[in-house]
């Protein structure tokens, strides 16, 4: 790929060229590197979890002063760095603590409060700032070139951590928390814990930046680099660079931090860099967020695409964005593999029904969405749930998957679900789809199928980031399962496509494949045929039957398409205004007058329209 070659050359030229600079400039570049690392740490929060910290300059100070305090008392330098990373991470966790309870952006205010507290309290204390102490550099870092190389190594380490995040469950959970916070719980994601972990990782990276700064400076008396202004400028660097783009952020750090120190005036103008650059970066921040949210990174990507188009030997043909026919033998083999998942609870026998709801009541404020609904689903059945819009069908799914406040009892495999965390239910074997897609449109199909298997990724997040063997093995296994699930639905050729680029009907099938990849016993499909044409609906009905038989699944389907219900369902329930009004064989249910009335208004007003 020409763009890869070009970026490799650009990085090599930049690094090689910088090594030819004199000592003073290299020393400036170490400072720029510190800023870049801190910004990359902030970016983990901004780009991956959609949260913001206004205290990253304060965290930088916490890291630097910790390193000086520990290192100047005779601890070897790796210990000083480790201490800085741990203490800063703890400070970040403290400010992020409310994320266990809240979903909004109010945590930005706790970080602002921390920034203020650090400026006024921490950094004004001599025991914190170690005013009378000096951290002496280890002998191998005595020259400026070596310190610069050391800073580059730290930067490379951070890039590696960011990469490991993106290919393990932690990074996927962060994205899910950002875009589909509630629904992600159905995959086994714990939103609060994920956000806290993001704060911890972000803080750890900034702590590393702080310790590099400490090694550079030895002792720090002025608190200027750690003030609110700097925190806000770090946000500016992330946004102007382009959230999520490491290359863009490093470039922005060089421009904002390096330019004023490298030249007294802006090139080609007489403007004084020290005065203009900060204010220009603030203006650019506003312009970027309004008009160019991709920032410099977006520019780089555009150049890369241009190079690939112009110089690429042959462009990759876009695959047909629809499911392909599947190979029955391969599908059966894949299905057998997908069923092999560990279950945390033993199946209590004898259980008459796989799912048994008793007097389920769901109320939001004064509105009762479900009122005394009792129904059961037997193993291997396909059960239809019908009713007009607002009848409570999706609410019932929400009740089973833990996204609605339930009174009553819902037993699954004999285990009471009410009171269990939503994130634990996929492990029990209940998976679902959403009426309006509960996946990440900005990510690839394969990433989404991996996300849906979060509950199966039972390695510690840290093991994934470090790349321990157990985590690598698990991830390999999850990727294999994702491939099998996609093949099962004829979607294998679309694995690396961005989900949002696919037709809506195909997205819906990707969602079903994702749910199946999680290895459920019970699959709840919410209007799976919405947005599909008649032929596609018919084909999907065949898939329901095949999936039930191949995977030994039990299905509950919410459907408006009555012929499909009649064709595939063993049993049907009809809801109206939160109350069950009919149940029985699908044909019997859809023939009942009150069901017809519920669907079409009064039966005698329904002239000219038939069910379906």
């Amino acid at each position, binding site marked *: 790929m020409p763009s890869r070659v070009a970026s490799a050359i650009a990085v090599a030229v930049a690094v090689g060229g910088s090594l030819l600079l004199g000592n003073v400039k290299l020393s400036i570049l170490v400072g720029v590197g510190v800023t870049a690392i801190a910004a990359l740490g902030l970016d983990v929060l901004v780009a991956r979890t959609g949260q*913001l910290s206004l205290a990253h300059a304060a965290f930088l100070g916490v890291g630097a002063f910790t390193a000086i305090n520990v290192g100047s008392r005779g601890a070897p330098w790796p210990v000083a760095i480790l201490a800085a990373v741990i203490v800063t991470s703890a400070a970040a966790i403290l400010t992020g603590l409310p994320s266990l309870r809240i979903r909004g952006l109010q*945590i930005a205010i706790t970080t602002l409060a921390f920034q203020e507290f650090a400026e006024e309290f921490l950094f004004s204390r001599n025991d914190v700032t170690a005013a009378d102490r000096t951290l002496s550099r280890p002998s191998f870092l005595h020259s400026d070139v070596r310190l610069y190389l050391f800073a580059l190594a730290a930067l490379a380490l951070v890039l590696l951590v960011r990469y490991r995040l993106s290919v393990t469950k932690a990074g996927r959970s962060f994205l899910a928390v950002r875009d589909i916070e509630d629904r992600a719980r159905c995959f086994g994601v714990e939103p*609060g814990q994920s956000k806290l972990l993001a704060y911890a990782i972000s803080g750890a990276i900034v702590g590393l930046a702080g310790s590099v700064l400490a090694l550079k400076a030895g002792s720090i008396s002025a608190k200027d680099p750690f003030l609110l202004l700097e925190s806000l400028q770090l946000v500016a660097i992330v946004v102007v660079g382009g959230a999520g783009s490491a290359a863009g952020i490093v470039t922005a750090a060089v421009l904002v931090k390096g330019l004023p120190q490298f030249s007294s005036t802006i090139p080609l103008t007489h403007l004084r860099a020290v005065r203009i650059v900060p204010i220009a970066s603030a203006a650019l921040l506003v312009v970027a967020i309004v008009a160019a949210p991709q920032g410099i990174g977006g520019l780089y990507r555009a150049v890369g695409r241009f190079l690939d188009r112009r110089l690429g030997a042959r462009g990759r043909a876009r695959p047909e964005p629809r499911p392909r026919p599947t190979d029955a033998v391969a599908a059966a083999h894949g299905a057998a593999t997908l069923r092999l998942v560990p279950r945390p609870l033993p199946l209590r026998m004898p259980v008459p029904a796989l799912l048994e709801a008793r007097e389920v009541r769901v109320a939001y404020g004064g509105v009762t969405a479900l009122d005394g609904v009792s129904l059961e689903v037997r193993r291997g059945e396909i059960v239809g749930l019908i009713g007009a819009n607002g009848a409570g069908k999706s609410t019932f799914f929400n009740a089973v998957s833990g996204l609605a406040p339930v009174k009553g009892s819902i037993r699954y495999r004999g285990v009471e679900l009410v009171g269990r965390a939503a994130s634990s239910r996929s492990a029990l074997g209940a998976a679902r789809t959403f009426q309006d897609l509960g996946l990440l449109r900005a990510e690839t199909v394969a990433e989404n199928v991996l996300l849906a298997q979060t509950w199966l990724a039972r390695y510690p997040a840290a093991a994934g980031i470090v790349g321990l063997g157990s985590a690598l093995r698990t991830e390999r296994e999850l990727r294999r399962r994702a491939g099998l699930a996609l093949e099962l639905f004829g979607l294998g050729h679309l694995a690396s496509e961005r989900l949002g680029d696919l037709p809506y009907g195909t997205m819906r099938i990707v969602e079903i494949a994702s749910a199946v990849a999680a290895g459920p016993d019970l699959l709840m499909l919410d209007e799976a045929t919405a947005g599909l044409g008649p032929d596609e609906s018919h084909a999907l009905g065949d898939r329901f039957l095949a999936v039930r038989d191949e995977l030994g699944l039990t299905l509950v389907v919410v459907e408006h398409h009555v012929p499909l219900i009649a064709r595939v369902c063993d049993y049907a329930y009809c809801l109206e205004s939160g109350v069950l009004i009919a149940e029985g064989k699908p044909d019997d249910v859809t023939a009942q007058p009150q069901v017809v009335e519920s669907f079409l208004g009064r039966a005698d007003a329904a002239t000219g329209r038939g069910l379906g």
Partner: protein
Amino acid sequence: MLARIITGLSAGAAYALVAVGVVLIYKCTRALSIAQGEIGAFGFFIALRWAARGIPGLGWHPARVVTLLIALVVGAALGAAIERLVMRPLVGRPPLDALIATLGVALFLALLEKELFGTATQFAPSPVGEWKLVVLGATLTAPRIVALAFAAGVALAAYVFFSRTRFGLAVRATTGDPTVARLMGIPVNRVYRFAWVAAGALAGLAAALLGPAFGGLTPFAMTKFSLRALAGAVIGGLDSIWGAIVGSLLVGVLEAVVGGQFTTAGASELAVLVLVIATLVARPRGLLGAEGAS
């Protein structure tokens, strides 16, 4: 102790003016603005400059009491400009984008102040006179007393506005569901503009009272003051005007009491940090808010 509480209440009242603006913007547009402090400060900086050097073109040196009015008007005008140029294009984008945009505005205004007025603390004479009042042992300067009066006035005005006027109802409808409100013929854009203009005016007012009360004005100082207002708004509940007032008063009192009790630098900042975190963990939607828990 009682004297400290009274002093704290007067500071809290000034924070409340900013906090009510923050809540107004949040209620109407779902955006959390951290620019309010700097919007107000910029207005008051301009007012002070004009009082000292005369209004450009007119050569008229406004009286001190007029600086209050100028701060208010400039704050309102900035609010209108920010709403139209920065915030409206962000409608429909993730809430983080709006927050970052207000941060950019705050950073830009603070740096502009630094460029125009320098980093030294600007002497800020009180726009409302130099008289003092002793209340229950606490000596309150004029800006503090006026802040208390204004906060009470704003609370009353907010109550009347939201319960008794057509436009207030339109604002509440927009809060509920902007799309539906638009379909019902409610001028949603006017509601957005109203929120930013009103919040800008309140911020200007607050800056003109807080600056003199705290011994002058420097760039970024108001961002720090507005932290207390933001903390107050979050503690009270981001969607509740009353919550913003109660929360801000609470922050003001806490700050005064802790600052008086402990001489360690930063003790009151530590207290505010602990209060914000503890409130959000124990009661995510704030003291009087209706939403926010997960």
